[in-house]
Structures are given as structure tokens and as C-alpha cells.
């Protein structure tokens, strides 16, 4: 479904990714792990069109993503969350999720300003969808609250709700468990697996929390200094000496 080939990008002469390649199959949960600065978030930023790589190819359902702008990539069914949450802080939780519905709504400025019947119907339906999503992620109570005033765990779930509102086919999660306590992480793992099982989503996740990675991933790729040093099933990765040396050993706590 998503194929990344020979991806290289450097910032100010420093290679952030070199010759990276991997494939994510439909309905797969694929994890990217690696020490800080290994280039994991850079992969997300390339796939979503924020960075242009110096070489390489990124294809999604056969289409070249590198030729598209970020909003066009979103329209193709790629949604993401951010490492340091990027909720729309002064807007309510409900409005945050409604913006996630953006690509599914049709009303333009003129018809919106005149509040024609079709716009009112569309808005009412979008509000219904957004509220249902908030309920499902346990955010029903805070629908009217300013997103920026919510605790971090809520903001993370809100970002997920916003991403899901676009009905994506591929979901990119950038450190979804960052800052969550073990109970919250456990709940998050169940949510992620359910998204794949019940909605057929394909999920690419960057994460430091090994319990989450090992618990839900079908396959894992390990990055170190912008290169892939291992790829395979979680149990094989956990036993790989190169991985242990580069990452697990030094960060095991």
C-alpha cells in the first residue's frame, strides 16, 4: 500500500535519512523505532509532503506522493498525528474534529455565507459524525472545551479523532504514547488494534514505548542514524544483536 524506496534527505549537510526503504501492506500495523534523531519523524514529514527528499520514491496506492502538496496527500487518504501535539488550541474539541472532516465537506465560501439548505444539512451531518467520534474516543464530555486547555492525554486522543474524521486509509501515528501513563497506553493499544481490525486501516507508527511497539506491531523497522539496521517481526527484532546494541540496550529502563 505504501512503498518507500531509497529515501535520502539531509539538513545542512547532515544526512537525516540515507537510502531508506520499506513497504507497508494493507491492514498492517508497521512500527518505526530507533534512538532519538534516527530520522523517524523525518520519514513522516516526507510521506505527508512537508519535506522534499533529495532522492528516493514514495508511492501510496501506486501514486507518487512526492509530486503532491500536503493537502493533496491528505485528500488521498493519508492522515497523521504529531509528536508534539498540534491541536487547534483556541478552538473547541468539536471544531478540531470538524476540521478533520474538511475534505468530506463541499460547501464553499459563498454558499456557506448564505447558509443555503444544502450547507445546513451538510453541517448538521458533519457535527453528528464529529460528536460520535469524540464519544468513541472518550471525549464526548469535553466537546465544547478549548483544545489547548485539555490535558495532554486528551489532546493526543483529540488529534487521533481529528485524523480519523478524514476517514483515512493510511494513518501515521507519531509517538502516540508519548507522555501517557501505562493505563492510558494500554487503552491506546486497544484503540489502535481495533482501528485496524474494525475499520481496515493501515497504520504506520513511530514510538519509543517498546511495550506498545512489541504488543501491537505486525512488523518493525529499526532506524539508526538515518539507516535501516533491521526489519521483521517484533520478537525477531527484540532478539537482534545489532538492534540491542543500537537501541534497546542503551535505552532499556
Amino acid at each position: 500500500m505504501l512503498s518507500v524506496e531509497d529515501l535520502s534527505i539531509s539538513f545542512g549537510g547532515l544526512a537525516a535519512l540515507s537510502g531508506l526503504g520499506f513497504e507497508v501492506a494493507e491492514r498492517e500495523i508497521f512500527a518505526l523505532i530507533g534512538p532519538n534523531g534516527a530520522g523517524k519523524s523525518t520519514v513522516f514529514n516526507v510521506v505527508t509532503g512537508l519535506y522534499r527528499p533529495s532522492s528516493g520514491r514514495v508511492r501510496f496506492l501506486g501514486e507518487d506522493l512526492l509530486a503532491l502538496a500536503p493537502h493533496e496527500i491528505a485528500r488521498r487518504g493519508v492522515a497523521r498525528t504529531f509528536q508534539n501535539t498540534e491541536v487547534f488550541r483556541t478552538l473547541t474539541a468539536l471544531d478540531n474534529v470538524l476540521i478533520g472532516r474538511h475534505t468530506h465537506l463541499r460547501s464553499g465560501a459563498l454558499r456557506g455565507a448564505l447558509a443555503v439548505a444544502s450547507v445546513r444539512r451538510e453541517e448538521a451531518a458533519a457535527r453528528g459524525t464529529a460528536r460520535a467520534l469524540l464519544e468513541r474516543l472518550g471525549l464526548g464530555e469535553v466537546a465544547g472545551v478549548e483544545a489547548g486547555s485539555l490535558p495532554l492525554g486528551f489532546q493526543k486522543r483529540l488529534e487521533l479523532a481529528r485524523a480519523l474524521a478524514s476517514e483515512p486509509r493510511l494513518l501515521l501515528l507519531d509517538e502516540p504514547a508519548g507522555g501517557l501513563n501505562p493505563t492510558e497506553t494500554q487503552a491506546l493499544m486497544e484503540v489502535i488494534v481495533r482501528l485496524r481490525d474494525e475499520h481496515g486501516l493501515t497504520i504506520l507508527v513511530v514510538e519509543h514505548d517498546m511495550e506498545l511497539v512489541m504488543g501491537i506491531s505486525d512488523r518493525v523497522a529499526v532506524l539508526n542514524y538515518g539507516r535501516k539496521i533491521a526489519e521483521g517481526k517484533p520478537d525477531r527484532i527484540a532478539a537482534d544483536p545489532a538492534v540491542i546494541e543500537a537501541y534497546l540496550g542503551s535505552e532499556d529502563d
Partner: protein
Amino acid sequence: MRRAALAIGALALLGWPWAAPPYFVFLASLIVVNAIVAIGLNLLSGYTNQLSFGHAGFLAVGAYTAAIVATRWPGVPVVAPLLAAALVTALVGLALGIPCLRLEGLYLAMATLAFGFVVVEAILNLDWLTRGNDGLRVPVAHLGSWALAGDRERYYLVLPVGAAMVWAALNLARTRTGRALLAIRESEIAAQASGVHVARYRALAFVVSALYTGVAGGLFAFVVGFLSPDAFDVFLSVDFVAMIIVGGLGSVPGSVVGAAVLTVLHDSLAGFQNYRPLIFGAILIASMLFMPGGIASAFRFLKGDRV
């Protein structure tokens, strides 16, 4: 409750010319004109965070367009010059907005400031069309056989137009377009990741903002009856910015209240011409320090909407 309040408000506005002396009717018309500008400016600066110090320029484009159309075709229904003002100013907004897409913050403020100066210079130099420094007399507006010759008649032209513009802005703000604009202000990368075409919406904000200000300019021309370039100087642009800061960035009702407060204040300080900038500056600073969300957020706070 809400309906009753709206009905009472509407009655008060409609009855105003019968209760107030002519000068206060004129002042009310001016408030409506400024409220339309403030809404337009707020859609640009408050909603997408693109600060403009050139809205007096847009107001001038609208005012002169309406005046020239009304002069060229005497007796034409007032709708025509107003539509022309809206259209021409929106096009100017597009022409300014597209190159400004690359600018942010201070640079955008400088570019719009320069635009304001360019408009005044253009009015001075195109004197075959605008009569330059001599000023342009605006013919009386007509609606069929009805000549809007007095302050009261003009108020009844301005009020429904203003009400329609407020209504449209409220609708726009709470549907897809308004949300996309706010999303851009809050986080550009998250807006893009949600499928919002940032450049297109930024340009759209410029066009809508200019259109609003153009309509206000058209009304302004008929309300004051005489146009000269010095009325559209940079201080007027600063007044518009002050209106949305005092009223509340990103709030349509706040724009209206801010316009009303500053217009009345402007008028009541007319006797202290020399101190006016001082008093205005003090109000701006106080408002930013103690009421950063403007009157709109103070109201929300009082109503307990905050949480």
C-alpha cells in the same frame, strides 16, 4: 429569550432615526460602515492572522468606485454602485493577496501599509477620474424613484446592508470556510494535514476581506457625500486595527462592538484633536494588557462560556 432580544434590538435599530437627532443618525450610519470594515479586517487578521494596515486603501477603492459609477450613470439604483464597489475591491484584494501569500507578520504589515499609500497616491494622480485633491462630490443615491437625500434615508440604506453582511459573516465563520481559516491561524501544518489548501484559503481571506471593505466604502461614499484622499490615510487603517483588537480578534460580534465603541469615542474626542492619538493608544495598550481577547472574550467570560 434570544429571539425576544433580537426582536427588541432590531426594533431599536429601526426606530433610532425617529428618536435621535440627525447627527446621531449620521453617526449610527458611520458605525455600521465601520462595523462592516471591522468584520472584513477580522476575517483576514483575526481569522488567518494576516495583519493588514492597509484597509483604508480598500475602503477608498470601494468609495471611489461607487462614487464614480453613481456619477457616470445618474439615477442608477444604488445596488449597482455598491455591487461595483464590492467587485472592484475584491479584485484589488485578490491582486494584493496573491503576492502577499509569501509574506508574514511584520513584512505583510509593511506591504499592506505600502498598499494604503499607493491607493492615496493613485487617487491624487488619476485626477481626471477622481478629481484628485479637489475631492469628489458623491451624487445622492437612488432606489427607484426614492432619492436617499437625508441622514435618515441613508441610514435605512446602510442598516439592512450591514445586517445582511453581519449575518453572512456569522454563517461563513461557523461553517467549513471559517473553520479552515481558523485552522490556518492555529497550526498551518495541522491544517494542511487535514486537507486544507492553505494558500487558497489565505488568498480567499484577502478577497472576502476586501469585498467587505469595498461594500463599506460604497456605503461610506453615500453617507458622507464627499470624498477626498486625505480621509483615507494610514491613521484610518490603524483605527480599523484598533477596532478589532478592542472588539476581539476572530469574533464577528466583537468586530461590531469594537467598531461602535471606537467610532463613538472618535466622535466624542473630536474636541480634543491633539490628544486623540494619546487616548487611543492608551485604550489599545490597556485592552491588549487586560483584555487580550477583546470585548468578545470578556463577554464570553461573564457568561461563563469559558469552560
